[in-house]
């Protein structure tokens, strides 16, 4: 593949040994800590993760092997001004996502005003017609969004993908930090780092704030998991534990008279807010997949009657659909009145004949994605693909162009990463978690940094050889009091 001059977040565009001035302390730490010591600490962290059971299952592998996601000991760092700019863009984007959802399940002004083609929303399987007209308590649909960002230069951040359904990964933000505090305490003395450990409190606050009206004095919140076979089960139990709320499965809930109850040894307890980590399809067999045994019959009716808040609301997939993604700049402008502060990655919609022609002519330079794919599956990375893979995608594109979008292969930024050959640059992306409650939007200063551990690789998905790093947000000035 061609050599791209990637921007290194610590060392800058030159990629030399010297760190950017604001990261001089980190640069020295990396230089002065022997690789063997970094390696020892990294293994200690991974051993702890394995013991905790922070594993994930690789989809598509016959034995669904449970693995831990590799952890990299060298952190990624954002300066306070960088974070402030990012936060502004994230708040704007998530406000727009919620306004969009409220509109498409309500008055559909954005269609009437011709901003997004009607069929792209209405004929999209992610739009759930049965829910049209239902407005969740406080009008908030996507309470928890994971916005995937990539970076190509000091000021150049792009949104790669919005996750507005049940985004996962926040437990890595918390566990990675805990490991770093334990294994590299000296780092946190070098510079003041914003804490992330109040995320569970912030999440709990968001959940409580969106309880149905009349139930707000002391709402009962629960976390609904598909069960311990789910690849993210560790995160479900971890979050429920940290918030001090019940972790329930569908069989623990019952709907009567359009009200949701939890079975407990003391009898039935009314449930007001359900943080559900179950996909829409499995929520309620009466409305979605009838063969589902994971769901709660009547749950959607309780939601539509306004008696329970589902976090996130069902039907939010229409906001993070990749076909809708390409319209996000217009959507942000439509609802917020200003240009998107965080731009999209340039995207060709293969459903448009001109775009399709361009994409077919440039397949070896582009990334092609299924609009309804996820986790790095159904994806062509042109520059690293074989001739055969490219020809397969060409045929698929010609057959069903509307199912694909294409993007340029970005020179994703790199961060120093511990490799077998010592510390070397590896490409990263970033997923901050944005909470939207009745009391506004909250972003805990941190997120999930995913790193492509293979040299030159741009695929950061955990299922395809990606790892994680801690993401440090520097504070403007030293924190008083300390924690």
């Amino acid at each position, binding site marked *: 593949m061609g050599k791209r001059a990637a921007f290194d977040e610590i060392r800058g565009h030159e990629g030399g040994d010297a760190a950017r001035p604001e990261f001089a302390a980190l640069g020295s730490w990396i230089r002065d800590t022997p690789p063997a010591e970094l390696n020892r600490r990294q293994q200690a962290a991974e051993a702890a993760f394995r013991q905790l059971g922070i594993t994930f299952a690789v989809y598509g592998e016959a034995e669904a092997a449970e693995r831990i996601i590799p952890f990299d000991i060298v952190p990624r760092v954002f300066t306070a001004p960088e974070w402030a700019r990012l936060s502004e863009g994230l708040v704007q984007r998530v406000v727009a996502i919620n306004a969009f959802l409220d509109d498409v399940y309500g008055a559909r002004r954005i269609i009437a005003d011709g901003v997004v083609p009607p069929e792209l929303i209405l004929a999209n399987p992610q739009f759930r017609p049965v829910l*049209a007209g239902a407005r969740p308590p406080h009008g908030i649909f996507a309470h928890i969004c994971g916005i995937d960002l990539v970076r190509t230069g000091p000021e150049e951040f792009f949104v790669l993908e919005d996750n507005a359904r049940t985004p996962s990964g926040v437990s890595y933000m918390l566990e990675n930090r805990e490991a770093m505090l334990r294994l590299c305490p000296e780092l946190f003395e070098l510079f003041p780092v914003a804490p992330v450990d109040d995320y569970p409190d912030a999440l709990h606050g968001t959940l409580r704030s969106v309880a149905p009206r009349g139930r707000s004095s002391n709402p009962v919140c629960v976390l609904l998991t598909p069960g311990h076979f789910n690849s993210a089960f560790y995160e479900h139990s971890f979050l429920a534990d940290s918030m001090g709320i019940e972790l329930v499965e569908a069989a623990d809930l019952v709907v009567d008279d359009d009200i949701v109850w939890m079975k407990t040894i003391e009898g039935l307890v009314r449930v007001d807010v359900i943080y559900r980590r179950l996909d829409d399809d499995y929520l309620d067999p009466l409305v979605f997949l009838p063969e589902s045994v994971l769901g709660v019959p009547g749950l959607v009716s309780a939601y539509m009657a306004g008696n329970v808040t589902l976090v996130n609301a069902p039907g939010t997939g229409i906001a993070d659909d990749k076909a809708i993604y390409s319209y996000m700049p217009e959507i942000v402008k439509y609802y917020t009145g200003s240009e998107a502060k965080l731009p999209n990655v340039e995207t060709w919609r293969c459903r448009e004949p001109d775009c399709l022609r361009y994409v077919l002519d440039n397949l070896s330079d582009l990334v092609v994605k299924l609009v309804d794919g996820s986790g790095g599956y159904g994806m062509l990375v042109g520059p690293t693909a074989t001739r055969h893979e490219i020809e397969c995608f060409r045929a698929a594109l010609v057959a069903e162009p509307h199912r694909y979008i294409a993007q340029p292969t970005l020179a994703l930024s790199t961060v120093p990463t511990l490799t077998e050959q010592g510390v070397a640059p590896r490409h990263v992306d970033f997923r901050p978690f944005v909470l939207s409650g009745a009391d506004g939007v909250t972003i805990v200063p941190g997120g999930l940094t995913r790193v492509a551990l293979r040299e030159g690789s741009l695929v950061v998905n955990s299922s395809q050889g990606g790892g994680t790093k801690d993401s440090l947000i520097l504070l403007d000035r030293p924190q008083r009091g300390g924690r």
Partner: protein
Amino acid sequence: MRLFVHHRTDYRFSEPQDRVVQLLRLVPGSHIGQNVVDWRIDVDCNARLRPGRDGFGNETAMLYIDGPVHAVSLAVMGEVLTQDQAGMVAGAAETLPPVLYIRATPLTAASESIRALAAEVEGADGTALDRAHRLMALVHRRMRFVPGRRIDGRNAATAYAEGEGNAADLAHVLIAAARRLGLPARYVSGHVLRPAHQHEWHEAAHAWAELHIADFGWIGFDPTADRCPDDHYVRVAIGLDHRDAAPVSGTRTGGGSEVLDVGVRVGIEG
């Protein structure tokens, strides 16, 4: 015409159930050519009914029954005044625009042979309305109507390959083919008066399709009879396919098996 509808749905369980929860779409709305004079749902056991409305505009009711449940009997009795509108639907509660109804669903995905069926009328001259009529006639001719056949989640492709089906199957095939032609198409569940059989109990509620034709709007097409619904028809619920509009979607908590018995009688006397 004054139509009297009796529609009963009986479930019997081989073992008592802990709980039964059902979503009912049994109540028709009024629109031009269809005025609901009286409509009642009776449940034979101690149950709670919660009325609602879904995104398609259907009147729904949630039915909650505590165990032990040995059997559930739903009885619908209604009286409707109808007028022949030549199949045209006007004045109904339209919550979603026609473009919604061009998407395929698992039950209405077009197979190779359904695509071929659509192609048969696609090339023909004439208006969209002509093509819709021709498509209905083709489905009527190609598929044997077996009214009592139980709905078992069969999709349009399977039903068309088997060459026979109940009203839902025929409607699904017509919908799948119409969407291939770019015509928005939706599923309708309801009732029909068969004058020669109005004193008999039929084994199932009826179903047909509505196609959206530019300049006309939604028009009903009943492929089981090869005609557009007239004053013999009562529209009850709509959706993308049977799953959205079925009279009853049910779940039960408990073991054993269930036996479902449906009886429908539509007459001009009460």
